């Protein structure tokens, strides 16, 4: 009898998959090493949040969040050019980082890889806002640091599992 994804929840929620995904994306695309750290992230007035939705056997989202200076640094490493302002290039870059994190994470679980789709990224910028999710099935929330001074948050939220 085939197992449902719910029966292999321990595999889906293994934090090592998220750690491996972050490490892979930042190493291959930005050329930097990331390490998981204890939060909270130092608050900046302006923040950016990227969301890529999951649909199919798992519904939910991958959420990337950082302060403006961190986002500009990430975009600069990704593009090879300094990004002095939070412009469309930075927003696009952060959306792509979140897209790759979501894809890499779901690719680590075979049942998710083929049967869970990704949305296009949505990017939100602003001040003094928080994201709330009601009664998630599970969530993984990690904080990472790179180059010893930049920190960001990655959250995998699941609100439905078949």
């Amino acid at each position, binding site marked *: 009898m085939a197992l449902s994804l719910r029966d292999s929840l321990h595999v889906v929620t293994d934090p090592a998959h998220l750690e491996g995904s972050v490490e*892979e994306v930042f190493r291959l695309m930005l050329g930097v090493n990331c390490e998981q750290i204890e939060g909270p992230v130092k608050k900046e007035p302006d923040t950016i949040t990227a969301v890529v939705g999951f649909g199919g056997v798992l519904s939910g989202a991958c959420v990337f969040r950082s302060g403006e200076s961190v986002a500009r640094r990430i975009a600069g490493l*990704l*593009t090879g050019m300094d990004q002095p302002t939070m412009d469309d290039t930075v927003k696009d870059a952060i959306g*792509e980082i979140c*897209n790759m994190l*979501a*894809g890499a994470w779901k690719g680590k679980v*075979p049942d998710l890889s083929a049967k869970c789709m990704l949305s*296009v990224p949505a990017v939100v910028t602003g001040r003094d806002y928080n994201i709330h999710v009601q009664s998630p099935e599970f969530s993984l929330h990690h904080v990472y640091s790179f180059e010893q001074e930049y920190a960001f948050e990655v959250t995998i939220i699941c609100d439905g599992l078949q």
Partner: protein
Amino acid sequence: MSEIRTLIVDDSSVMRKIVERALRQAGLELSAVHEASSGTEALEILRAKTVDLILSDINMPSMDGLEFLRQLRDQNLAPDVPVVMITTESSEEHVKQAIVAGAQGYIRKPFTPEQVKDRVLPLLVVA
């Protein structure tokens, strides 16, 4: 190898630039780089321009990469041009769908310039 005219299809302008950079780092001389943010835009470009290589994302608004491939075939646009998908979708099923739709290669994001070189150069030699 002679200079290559390329079409890069991705809804992210940042990713299009990254792909272009990876092609140059792979040693390709690019005489023209056309960019499209969707399959629809890519088809319009191909009706007007000749290219030697197409690299396309899959997940895009308006027209995704797989539908773009099917339309390429149905409209007989760029019939002998190699198409390589560059995408976050990594399952065997997605790779099969891309090959059936007409792709000759597949690169998963995140990627290195070396991976781009390994996938793309053999296709250009054959072409």
